[in-house]
């Protein structure tokens, strides 16, 4: 006997017990001359055939291989929940600005509209959604809170668990061991949505502009399919991409806008300094003089800092050079680092005085009092959104709303200027709402 609730609103392969699940559909189907995966909707290459004749999909292999001999089963979502009367157990308080944004989101949710919450870094986006989420839960809706970043999901899940203590919840991501449980609230990475089919009444997409969602049609499709045909979605971002900004201008997407941080101070601006041919000099074992001076001054004051660099392969050279110049007491961290979470925590606990990192720490991490330095901000890996997010690491705490953000570039590029312009624009609007300069 299999647990049928596993198949509610999902698109899963099954080994046994097919009689209760109906016919199912082949996981890989021939469409014209080509084959298409029915789980991720991607086309197979002409070479993706196994010697036993089956076709298999390489795109969603990480979720377990499906072949033309596999069958996928689904049971339409029955919304079998018993929601509590007042699900919100969060005791914090929203600022007047947050309150206003939260009210606007709730109204649009009740009208069934797709919408966007554009709130600056450190505005408290998660909490702003709580009132609307509480309302949705009482309606018996099935809701997913998804993000392309696993770090964001891992940070989010305990917060939501505490804020909605009586609501059934589950957290899904790639390397986890806990089994799937049918529950009203699902926190997961966007990849996991490939296993769902018309399941959710409301999908909240956190950090909608983050890699890899922004550039992946596969994941965008996953969101569309996991949403019910009468469902809706809410995008959360601090830095909407070009496409979203166009939709905002054309007023095709309902937008709630919050240009001020929760503590009421304006965003720190990017300060740009020139570092001529820094990469060539780095290969000779030299870092820009002003950078070294700045970092030594931070160390002298006991100010912790983050140094962002473009590539993982730059890290060893930079670490060696920093050590030589007497900038000690920090380590480097990158995406594949097994001790990544430990190192981030060590900086938070003041056991380290700095971290040298790549764009992996650009969003979803909070340090209470931190200075930010970017080396090579004109490199192609830093998008406008990435630079604004990185600058948003500084001054997040109400006790230390002031934070320096310095960006060393070889040339002033359009991307850097656009990032500055975006911060300036947000701050101008923030000022109209009574924002203060720290």
């Amino acid at each position: 006997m299999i647990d049928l609730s596993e198949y509610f609103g999902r698109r899963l392969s099954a080994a046994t017990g097919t009689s209760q699940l109906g016919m199912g559909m082949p996981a890989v189907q021939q469409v014209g001359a080509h084959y298409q995966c029915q789980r991720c909707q991607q086309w197979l290459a002409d070479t993706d055939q196994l010697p036993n004749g089956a076709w298999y999909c390489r795109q969603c292999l990480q979720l377990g291989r499906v072949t033309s001999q596999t069958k996928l089963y689904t049971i339409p979502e029955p919304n079998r929940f018993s929601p509590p009367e007042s699900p919100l157990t969060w005791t914090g308080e929203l600022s007047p600005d947050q309150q206003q944004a939260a009210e606007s989101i709730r109204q649009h949710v009740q009208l069934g509209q797709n919408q966007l919450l554009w709130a600056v870094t450190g505005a408290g986006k998660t909490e702003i959604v709580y009132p609307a989420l509480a309302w949705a839960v009482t309606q018996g809706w099935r809701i997913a809170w998804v993000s392309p970043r696993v770090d964001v999901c891992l940070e989010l899940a305990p917060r939501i668990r505490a804020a909605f203590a009586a609501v059934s919840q589950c957290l899904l991501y790639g390397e986890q061991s806990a089994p799937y449980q049918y529950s009203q609230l699902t926190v997961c990475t966007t990849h996991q949505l490939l296993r769902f089919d018309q399941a959710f009444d409301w999908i909240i997409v956190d950090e909608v502009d983050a890699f890899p969602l922004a550039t992946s049609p596969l994941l965008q499709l996953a969101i569309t399919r996991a949403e019910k045909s009468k469902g809706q979605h809410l995008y959360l971002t601090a830095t909407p991409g070009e496409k979203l900004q166009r939709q905002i201008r054309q007023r095709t997407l309902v937008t709630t806008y919050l240009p001020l941080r929760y503590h009421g101070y304006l965003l720190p601006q990017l300060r740009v300094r020139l570092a001529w041919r820094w990469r060539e000099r780095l290969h000779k074992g030299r870092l820009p003089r002003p950078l070294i001076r700045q970092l030594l001054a931070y160390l002298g004051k006991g100010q912790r800092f983050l140094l962002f660099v473009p590539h993982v392969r730059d890290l060893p050279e930079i670490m060696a050079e920093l050590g030589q110049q007497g900038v000690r007491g920090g380590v480097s961290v990158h995406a594949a680092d097994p001790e990544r979470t430990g190192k981030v925590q060590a900086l938070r606990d003041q056991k380290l005085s700095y971290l040298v990192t790549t764009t992996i720490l650009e969003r979803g991490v909070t340090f209470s009092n931190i200075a930010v330095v970017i080396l090579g901000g004109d490199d192609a890996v830093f998008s406008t959104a990435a630079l604004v997010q990185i600058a948003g690491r500084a001054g997040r705490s109400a006790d230390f709303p002031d934070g320096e953000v310095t960006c060393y570039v070889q040339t002033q590029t359009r991307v850097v200027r656009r990032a500055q312009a975006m911060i300036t624009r947000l701050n101008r609007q923030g000022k109209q709402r009574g924002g203060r300069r720290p």
Partner: protein
Amino acid sequence: MTRCVWCTRTFEPPVTLQDLLRWRPLPVPALCSSCQERFTPITGAHCPACGRQQATTIRCHDCERWGTETLTNHALFQYDAGMKAYMQQYKFQGDYALRKALQAPLYRALARQTYDVLVPIPVDQHTWLTRGFNQVTGWLRDQPFQQVLRVKADHKSQPQSAKTRAERLVTPQPFMLDAAAAKIIANRRVLLLDDVYTTGRTLRHAANQIYLGGAKAVTSLTLAR
């Protein structure tokens, strides 16, 4: 511009002067340089019996433990984290396209071996149905091979990789010879081909059967040790 079969990123394959002077179509590598570096080739000193990378060229501890039941094995790569990650995706997740990643090094290694008949280690029926391919023959491009070994029907299909060393060593003979085998291997030099040499149990079982078929000599080649 070529796409790496493992990390799926595009890269520019390096072109050497030798490639140009050869005046043939340029070789298209399956892996980008960073994926290629995840494999550690076995070079220099290694165990003469099992091919393991070590500091000396005397038989290693594990080979001594086999006593007189000798088998000469050559191995291409060390069985380290990179190779494990590769095997995980290729064999256990079943990403058949990854076979291309190691076809070229295996091609060169086979060219250095002396043998008459190439015999890949077979997979059992259940694996064939679920995995859909034999991971060993996947690495062969167009080298001729003879599938003279079969897995016995009554053989319990618990994979070797899920067992401890002690459990592996007591594994009963899983192979039998194909009916037409004697004609093919009698009085010939046979090279067995397998993916990983761990304890050497599987390869010795296979070698024993091949000897029963009348082969003159049996050696083996594995991708990893």
